């Protein structure tokens, strides 16, 4: 029995019920009180996302300022339950057009009830794909109470045939004037570096996002410069592998539209895309990661009331490229009294609420190394015996047209019966995941 959820609750941070849906009778109606009493009002909150109270297990997840709680009375599949919540939230977001929070729920609760009925029946997950559901749940999400309230009175299309069709993710008979495909390769770099500058842990999780505006039922084929794919190709064509950088992907997962059998036999990514935006694939790389930044901190504690912080950040990508929105958070002790900075570029300030020096550089060109040097005065405390536990320096950035893994799209081929021409757009971007340097 994968999930058979007995009930699902949406609560705000105070524990008020925003939405509840009881699917089965095997749990009492006061389950939410149990949750409030045993989890929300105790220190338990946030210590474990799965809890058992009485005979029921509670799975809960916090999304912005809402708790989503699934109550289950049997031995349910945990991974499935959490995945369901994540998917459901994605679905709601696509209906509301943006944020999923308490206000959005209050403004759209009727819609949510409708959706909850469709995505789960008697505790079993049904269809959660937004493309299909949007065909027959047409009520438009109300964005804000002030916008014009004109409920759509469109006749409901008899789209139920497609609800469960074989190519569940694509409708027939789409037509676009301009056939365009947008590919976004988004990578996030996770790094953990010791204070001595050695890399403790480093990996890249990337995803390929696709936006399709194509007519008919096109068949797409994507070629990347990954090692296995290239080797297979050169085997097939009896040609030696071209020189050039190849990437070894540790693990790949695909959107359900990708023909996995063909991927296993031919190592090519071929698929019939859904209409609109979707996540084509995700991959993970641990070997041969090009780190875009190196951080070299030196922190000296001079006596009990003074500290000297020097941070040098080096950009190691091409000189023609530049990073955007670089934020470097340098932790300082709680009892910081006064700070003074000198930075070679960008702006820095002391943020007392997070106990950090925040150094922002809007545009950070490649092959440069700005520095920050700061002097920090501390309030001398008598009772303070504990030494300061130095949290890591954290960094945020975005580097357009750069991939930390070196992944490149070699080709994207589109076949369709009518044989139209398509325009393909490819973008690369590398973001910081958790980019931490100990100091």
């Amino acid at each position, binding site marked *: 029995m994968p999930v*058979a959820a007995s009930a699902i609750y949406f609560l705000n941070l105070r524990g008020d019920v925003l939405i509840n849906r009881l699917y089965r009778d095997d749990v009492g109606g006061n389950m939410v009180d149990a949750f409030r009493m045993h989890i929300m009002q105790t220190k338990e909150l946030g210590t*474990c996302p799965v809890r058992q109270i009485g005979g029921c297990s509670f799975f809960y997840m916090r999304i912005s300022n809402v708790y989503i709680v699934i109550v289950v009375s049997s031995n349910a599949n945990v991974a499935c339950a*959490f995945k369901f919540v*994540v998917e459901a939230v994605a679905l709601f977001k696509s209906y509301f057009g943006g944020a999923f929070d308490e206000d959005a729920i209050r403004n759209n609760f009727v819609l949510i009830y409708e959706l909850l*009925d469709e995505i789960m029946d008697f505790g079993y997950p049904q269809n959660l794909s937004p493309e299909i559901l949007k065909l027959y749940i047409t009520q438009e999400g109300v964005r804000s109470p002030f916008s014009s309230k004109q409920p759509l009175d469109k006749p409901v299309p008899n789209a139920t045939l497609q609800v469960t069709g074989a190519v569940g993710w694509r409708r027939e008979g789409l037509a676009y004037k301009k056939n365009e495909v947008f590919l976004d390769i988004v990578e996030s770099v996770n790094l953990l570096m010791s204070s001595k500058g050695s890399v*403790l842990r480093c990996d890249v999780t990337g995803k390929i996002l696709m936006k399709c505006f194509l007519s008919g039922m096109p068949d797409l084929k994507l070629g990347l410069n990954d090692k296995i794919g290239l080797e297979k190709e050169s085997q097939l064509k009896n040609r030696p592998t071209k020189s050039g950088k190849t990437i070894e992907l540790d693990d790949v997962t695909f959107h359900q539209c990708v023909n996995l059998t063909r991927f296993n036999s031919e190592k090519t990514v071929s698929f019939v895309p859904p209409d609109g935006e979707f996540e084509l694939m995700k991959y993970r790389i641990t070997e041969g990661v090009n780190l875009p930044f190196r951080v070299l901190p030196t922190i000296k504690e001079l006596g009990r009331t003074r500290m000297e912080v020097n941070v040098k950040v080096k950009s190691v990508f091409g000189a023609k490229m530049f990073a955007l929105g670089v934020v470097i958070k340098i932790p300082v002790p709680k009892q910081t009294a006064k700070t003074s900075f000198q930075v070679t570029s960008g702006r820095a300030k002391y943020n007392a609420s997070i106990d950090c020096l925040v150094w922002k550089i809007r545009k950070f060109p490649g092959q440069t190394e700005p520095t920050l040097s700061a002097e920090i005065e501390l309030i001398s405390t008598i009772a303070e015996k504990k030494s300061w536990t130095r949290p890591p320096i954290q960094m945020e950035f975005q580097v357009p047209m750069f991939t930390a893994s070196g992944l490149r799209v070699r080709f994207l081929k589109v076949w369709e019966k009518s044989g139209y021409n398509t325009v393909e757009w490819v973008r690369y971007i590398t973001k910081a995941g958790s980019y931490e340097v100990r100091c």
Partner: protein
Amino acid sequence: MDSAATSFSSSTPSPVDYIVLLILRPIAAISFVFVFIALGWLLAWKLVLVHVPLVQEIFGLRKKPAKFKPQTRRISRYYNSINTRNSSAPGSGYPPVLVQCCHSSSIAIIKPNYSRVAISHLWSSLEPPSNRIRLLCSTFSQAMAPPAQSSRNPSPSQPSGKGEVSDLRSQLRQLAGSRAPGVDDAKRELFKKVISYMTIGIDVSSLFGEMVMCSVTPDIVLKKMCYLYVGNYAKVNPDLALLTINFLQRDCKDQDPMIRGLALRSLSSLRVANLVEYLVGPLGSGLKDNNAYVRTVAVMGALKLYHISASTCLDADFPAVLKHLMLNDSESQVVANCLSALQEIWNSESSTSEEAAREKEGLISKPFIYYLLNRLREFNEWGQCLVLELVAKYVPSDTNENFDIMNLLEDRLQHANGAVVLATIKVFLQLTLSMADVHQEVYERIKAPLLTLVSSGSPEQSYAVLSHLHLLVMRAPYLFTSDYKHFYCQYNEPSYVKKLKLEMLTAVANESNTYEIVTELCEYAANVYVAIARESIRAVGKIALQQYDVNAIVDRLLQFLEMEKDYVTAEALVLVKDLLRKYPQWSHDCIAVVGNISSKNVQEPKAKAALIWMLGEYAQDMDDAPYILESLAENWEDDAPEVRLHLLTAIMKCFFRRPPETQKALGIALAAGLSDFHQDVHDRALFYYRLLQYDVSSAERVVNPPKQAVSVFADTQSNEIKDRIFDEFNSLSIVYQKPSYMFTDKDHRGPFEFSDEIDNLTVGVESEHVVAATSVDANETSDLLLSTSEKEETRAMVANGSDYTAPFYDSSTPALPSQGQSELAITGLLGTADPGPQASTAIDDLLMGLDLTAPPAPASAPPPLKLNARAALDAGSFQRTWRELPVAISQECELGSQGAAALTSPQALLHHMQGNSIQCIASGGQSPNFKFFFFAQKAYEPSVFLVECKINTSTTKAQLNIKAEDQSTSHEFLALFQSALSRFGLS
């Protein structure tokens, strides 16, 4: 010239001209302009501005919401008069219901008693919907008469919720019959309000009637809201729910499949037991509907029906229809729903009906599994999870089949949905359980997808995956030894993920990576979150206890001791204590550091106890140990009972080694202990006192016997439980780390019953082996029995018992056998025997004596044994007796080949044994291993025999464990049982 003059004179302006020129003309010009502008505005107003919403708003031109017809017509006036009459005479009971029937234009009067039948009858006869509305109106004016009055004159003193509800009611009533154009929008707003009240928890069930009246509408959103409302309150208002049946049934025949589906879903969600008769028809036609959406809904509806009334569902033969659909439907979602419905139905039926059990077996038969696997790609992700879960139960006949399935499913490991990936992994693991080498390859194959799952998705998802990883690592520790870096904690991760990652790091540590892992763990010791810092220190300790080469780790631990953070010191002390128990050779280095710690800086009881234990144990190596102990003893009252117990023992140990220095401390401690309020402390002090009084050397033998180092710390979970958890891969069991029966079975959860256990406290204290043995027995029994006392309870008791007897081995740190036993011996004595002359006998002998609770069997020849053919025993008392009684006979016997062949299912043997007056209380297992619990009762006495019987049909052996209330007859019973068993399969 003249003319020129005249022309000149005429050109001189007259005063009139001046007036015209200076006043009239400007006025004319200005007024012209104004008129022009005014005309322009007028034009603009008429043509454009009137339609601008903002302008409408400002000038109050917005149209009022549609007004509904005032109640001036004859009939409505008539109803009103009825209402007023009702309210004026509340004691007169229910008024007759008046129904205006337009066909016959006559008035039918129905008594409330048969109103249900009559109304539903009338309903079908009323053709135009407006008449139906009127019927509804009249019915509700009857049912709702008293509240209707309150809506008429709402009093200001009413609580807010009620006032609003009655407001809503009057508005709904106005809308009910109206057909004005804007009425649907108005209804929508009202319905939204009602549902939002419902969500907040205000009871709006009193609006049931009005809501149903308003639901006659083509608007699908309104319908959905109404269905939601009805579904929520039908249970509370079963009588009113009847009225919804009609419109729901009608909607089930709608042209739009969407409406058909929705109506069918809400009809089946009413959950009112006496309305199921109305459900069977629509469900039957829904299952045959040509639209897939309706079929998916109908399948779930059948399951819902089963839960409301199982017999109705079975009588209508829905399982067979579902099975047919499951095998033939073209829609994957229908198949998936059928599958989940049938699994549920047959699971709960299989205990009573053999046919259902057979059908359940059929689900995991080869053709069906292959059918599903071939269609696997059609299913959506959730359906795939369902199918894979089923496939994991399938046992292929040969290895080729194994590989076929695995090849087919390999691509599922690349699926974007983590749940599908985990389900696939489960299939792989289960399929290869019997093939050791392939099993290892599977581990290698699933490594990458699992690691991806950990790092992608929300922290909650990684938590779920990490718990599974932890389980796998326990089974295959080498698996992630090179990937340990994936389990380094990130600064911002929630603590539950960090905690699991720390456990993973501990589990994957081996010779090659210990250094890196311990270095990393030491970083966390300085973590801001104290809980994580503690966990990481504990993790270092655990690694130290696993490894042979502990050099570096001991240094680190000693560094922790010097870190000057109280919680770090505390945790490190506990660890050093455990470490010394395993590696006494390190005592020298450790004691040097421990000696420097001032006991004043250690506050936590556990840490203080550890420190005191070390002081006592290594008294000869620490110069000032007696004096530290003495100062601690002087501040007796400051410490927790746990610490005081340890202090007593430590001072005793110290006394045996350095009597002159410790004498004073001992005196203080014993005096303080004897006057202690805590029972345990008092008893222990008294015991030591008498022991010393009796003989110092034997006291030393008891309190401080020579110890040997602990080689392996006991595992907290038995292998059987671990395997069981592994079988339930990809479920909650993994997260809770216990098999599902412990947390789903109702009987395992009850409140902690202590009194029952108190009586058997002797059993609890006897020795740990006995406790462990009985608890394991209890586990086994309880997982087979349906209603048994809880396993957790027993476990808790065990933990409790060990706390009680050996305070410094809390349940989380595994107990150590050799030394633990001696401590147990002492406290065991304290707990059971009064410390009088008995204490003088050798403790070991006494222990042995305690072990044997069973008196020797009397020699007198008993009369031939007769059994009661209709013995009765409920599961609870079986369980209790089983736990209380010792095993009288344990024997293996031969089943015989025919018997083994006949034993295809547990039921077969049950019937046979019943024929021999031996009843079965629980059975389980699958070929070739079966397990039974039997009981029998003597014919003329209440004394019972309990039998645990494990049969292996492949070896044709049966293992019997017999417990008897009357020990003397147990051998006779054994003979009887064996003869009965050997006859099995012959008849």
